């Protein structure tokens, strides 16, 4: 044995070990003392990033939820109980989303959660909602290919945004050649897969489709834009379908404008550029480029006017814009309220049962309905960018006559999902295979 | 290192025609030097004469642009790196005392001990009886026996110098390079250091001492080499060298 060892054994117990033990104890105890929901209020969880990269989009959604809850309370709450918002910050960190979701459901005992923006954050919280059997309202347009019992998708599925936009370009602009330009993540990937299949089914030759991906936050668009320019000068009318995400859009549009690509030459239709994103761009060179959404701030209906007015009053900022995911939360929240009233209970199981079939007027003059596949019916609008940063609806001609398109969880244009169907009312299944007649995929 | 090499010289250290330049500045210029086994040599020279650079070359820190550096008659040092050279048996004490300040004196010596320095050997290493004895012996020689558990960082400047010499002893090299061992020492300490080095030398070790302190060099009483502008200016006994006109000129300035 080593001499020093004996000495070590004689070292007195150092305080820092006690400190460690004490810290552990405090940690445990304070966590036990979690607040129990008071009997006369019902808690509503808000799970949107308030810091980090996604704060840019999600902070607004937190504000709109606070406004909606505030408003509902002014009307007397739901089933005679006041609603109480519980706001957490998952800080644009995906595992933290899961942790916060668990905290909301088990510690704060919320009855429903409104939240998430990115697909990955939704994927991260999914298992939590399934395990703890709670409800999530997800307000953002997404790639589809999902239908879960505990999740209600109030944003657009690809068939409610991408396909109508492409149809418009084919019909109105006679586009023959397509650039599918996207940020490299799952939404653009899936959307572009669907669009590729769709375009081919419409007789577009493979060499007339160029698919290209760039990383998140990409800022040097010179090469990409000149590629588009080259591709667009093959003698056929060309359009760009952009699934470029958030931050990368500003430099993209700036480069487009500077390289002189005008909407009349090569129009760009975007699925992720809304009023909020345009607020950071000088839109004068972009007039005429397009976006496809289910809601535009510029749509002139009494409901929308009232909503905008209230939003300005609530945020005390007459310049705050409204956008599509905000409307999705508006619809989702009101649907939840109606479902609770229908079920006469806040119990998630009963509310989930009650939700399909609930109808709620949207802000653009139609009435959206929650479908058995947990997606909703939505009108599709194509808007052109205006010099003032707003969109001018160019399709349909008359906003009030917009057709409502039911959201399709499983795309008909992907080989893996064309046989799948989601129906939580009759089939009680999110991925029923119509060929094998079994729940649980077994497709492809 | 190739194992079979013929001895080309009887010298312990053999430098011939060595050149080094940094960005056009010739730090070492056609330097040649020969040390026989068991010899102790004092190297003097004004600042910038290339003394430390010479040490850097011998220990592998700096590669010469051209010239031969041969150790123990057969090993070409220019092809080896610091670790290999140290493993061969060349130990070095730095100009500025460099000890491991956050470790105890004992651990400093332990680290210097001439045992298996490979990773695995070090991980599973245990101190054996003879090794403990050696450390005790070195501690005794450098007169730090009472302070073995003190942190090296808390030692005085002179003590650090001694500790570093002690580390050289523990390392048990064939060739010791000692850079300014008495800087910052009192007269008594200086004398003790000279004794110590002589003692070391008497155990068949070859020693190179670089020093400014002429009293100290005189104390050592060995052959002296005077460097200037990277080359040998004069060589001989201390009296011969100090009588050399050019040496005087260099030291006193022109």
């Amino acid at each position, binding site marked *: 044995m080593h001499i020093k060892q004996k000495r070590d054994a004689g070292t007195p117990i150092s305080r820092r070990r006690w400190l460690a033990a004490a810290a552990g104890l405090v940690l445990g105890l304070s966590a036990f003392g979690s607040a129990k929901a008071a009997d006369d209020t019902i808690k509503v969880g808000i799970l949107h990033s308030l810091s980090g990269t996604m704060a840019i989009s999600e902070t607004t959604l937190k504000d709109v939820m606070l406004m909606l809850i505030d408003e509902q309370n002014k009307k007397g709450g739901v089933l005679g109980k006041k609603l109480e918002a519980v706001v957490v910050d998952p800080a644009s960190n995906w595992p933290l989303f899961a942790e916060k979701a668990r905290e909301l459901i088990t510690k704060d005992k919320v009855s429903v959660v409104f939240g998430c923006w990115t697909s990955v954050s939704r994927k991260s919280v999914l298992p939590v909602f399934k395990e703890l059997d709670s409800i999530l309202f997800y307000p953002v347009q997404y790639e589809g290919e999902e239908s879960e019992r505990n999740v209600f998708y109030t944003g657009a599925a690809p068939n409610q945004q991408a396909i109508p936009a492409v149809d418009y370009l084919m019909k109105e602009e006679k586009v023959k050649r397509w650039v599918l330009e996207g940020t490299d993540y799952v939404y653009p990937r899936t959307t572009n897969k669907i669009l590729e299949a769709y375009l081919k089914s419409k007789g577009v030759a493979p060499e007339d489709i160029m698919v290209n991906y760039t990383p998140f936050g990409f800022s040097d668009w010179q090469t990409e834009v000149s590629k588009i320019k080259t591709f667009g000068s093959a003698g056929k009318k060309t359009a760009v379908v952009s699934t470029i995400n958030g931050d990368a859009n500003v430099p993209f549009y700036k480069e487009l404008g500077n390289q002189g690509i005008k909407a009349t030459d090569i129009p760009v239709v975007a699925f992720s550029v809304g009023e909020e994103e345009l607020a950071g761009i000088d839109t004068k060179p972009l007039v005429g480029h397009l976006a496809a959404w289910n809601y535009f701030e510029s749509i002139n209906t009494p409901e929308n006017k009232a909503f905008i007015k209230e939003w300005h009053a609530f945020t005390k900022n007459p310049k705050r814009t409204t956008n599509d995911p905000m409307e999705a939360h508006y619809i989702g929240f009101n649907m939840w309220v109606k479902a609770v009233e229908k079920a006469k209970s806040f119990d998630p199981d009963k509310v989930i049962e009650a939700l399909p079939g609930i109808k709620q007027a949207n802000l653009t003059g139609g009435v959206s309905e929650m479908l058995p596949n947990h997606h909703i019916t939505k009108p599709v609008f194509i808007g052109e960018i205006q010099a003032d940063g707003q969109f001018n609806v160019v399709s349909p001609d008359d906003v009030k006559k917009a057709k409502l398109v039911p959201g399709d969880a499983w795309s008909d244009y992907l080989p893996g999902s064309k046989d799948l169907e989601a129906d939580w009312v009759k089939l009680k299944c999110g991925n029923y295979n119509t060929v094998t007649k079994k729940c649980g995929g077994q497709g492809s | 290192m190739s194992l079979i090499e013929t001895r080309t010289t009887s010298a312990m250290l053999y430098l011939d025609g060595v050149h080094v330049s940094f960005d056009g500045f010739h730090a070492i210029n056609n330097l040649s030097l020969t040390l026989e086994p068991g010899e102790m040599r004092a190297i003097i020279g004004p600042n910038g004469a290339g003394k430390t650079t010479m040490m850097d070359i011998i*220990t592998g820190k700096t590669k010469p642009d051209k010239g031969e550096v041969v150790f123990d008659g057969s090993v070409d040092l220019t092809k080896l790196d610091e670790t290999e050279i140290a493993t061969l048996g060349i130990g070095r004490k730095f100009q500025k005392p460099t*000890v491991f300040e956050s470790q105890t004196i004992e651990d400093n010596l332990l680290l210097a001990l001439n045992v298996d320095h490979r990773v695995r050997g070090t991980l599973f290493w245990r101190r054996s009886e003879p090794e403990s004895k050696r450390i005790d012996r070195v501690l005794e020689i450098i007169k730090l026996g009472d302070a073995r558990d003190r942190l090296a960082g808390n030692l005085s400047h002179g003590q650090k110098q001694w500790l570093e010499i002690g580390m050289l002893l523990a390392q048990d090299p064939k060739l010791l390079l000692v850079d300014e061992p008495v800087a910052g020492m009192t007269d008594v300490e200086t004398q003790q250091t000279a004794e110590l080095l002589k003692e070391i030398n008497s155990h068949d070790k070859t020693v190179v001492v670089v020093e400014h302190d002429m009293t100290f060099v005189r104390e050592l009483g060995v052959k002296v080499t005077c460097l200037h502008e990277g080359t040998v200016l004069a060589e001989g006994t201390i009296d011969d060298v100090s009588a050399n006109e050019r040496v005087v000129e260099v030291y006193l300035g022109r």
Partner: protein
Amino acid sequence: MTPHILTRSLNRGALIFLLVVAAAGILLPLSNLLLPESSALHVPTYLISLFGKYVCYAILALSIDLIWGYCGILSLGHGAFFALGGYAMGMYLMRQIGSRGVYGNPILPDFMVFLNYKALPWYWYGFDHFWFAALMVLLVPGLLAFCFGWLAFRSRVTGVYLSIITQAMTYALLLAFFRNDFGFGGNNGLTDFKDILGFNVQAEGTRAALFMLSCLALAIGFLICRSVVTSKLGKVLIAIRDAESRTRFLGYRVESYKLFVFTLSACMAGVAGALYVPQVGIINPGEFAPGNSIEAVIWVAVGGRGTLIGAALGAIVVNYAKTVFTSGPLAPYWLFMLGAMFVLVTLLLPKGIVGTVNAWLEPWKAKRLSRNAESAAREDGVIKPNMAE
């Protein structure tokens, strides 16, 4: 093998730390499983997985402390090893889903089905076996660290340069894993796990077991680190940290030592990542973000660099603070607190919590046992951590 390197590492402090970890690892899951929910001492399941996460972070912090605190290598890319370990485990968990994925494909994970993969990419082979995945958890981060370290240490890239290129490494991996063509699920990563070794990952029992395993891994990791730093090798590491070139002149092959400890540390980080994934239920490229790795370094700094216990404690304290402050009215201010923590700890508490407490106790200890005080402190290596390189 030689038991002395283990026994030597166990001083009183280490034993107490191990006891606390063991107690937590046994009592918390038991209280969760056995006590009724109404009991005041019942630990809810969500706390079990939350603590499990902290424990994984603590292992990561230990691994960073081993190289930074003891060898002066500041890696700003340790998150990469953590994530790689996580991905290896995630791949195993993905393969366990089998035909229960939404598309019901028995072989391909869901994301591959909807990206039209025809067959499983070759690098996914073998991950249906747990032993293979477990091996990869160690091997992949270890191998990357070995190759990276072999290049970097051999050419003597040190200090901030090393920090910057480790950051470049994790950044390059971040970009690579974001690519959907890379075959690891792109931005979404791997998620929706079902089973681990045949047990449902959601089940309370599995969570409790995973928590226990994490505590066990923390204890083992701690013992390994302790053994390393109390051996002679540990002294060499400190020597390298304080005076690298001096160590070389003593005949130590510094790059081999650095490589050894860097690879060991990467393997530990990989294990931490592997345990983390089933408990949080997702692994995605976000874990490679340079910011995450830097945040992990601050855990070590808060707890006390060069004190293994401090590193583990720091990880738990900072993450607990994060959990508390990202809820409720303080939510928007969390980043202010984190930022301030970075600044204040480096300015006012350079030794971290444990190091500072040790320093306070120093005179008191010195009085009681003057001779032993230093050796104890030395073994934690907290004295004068030389910050330069």
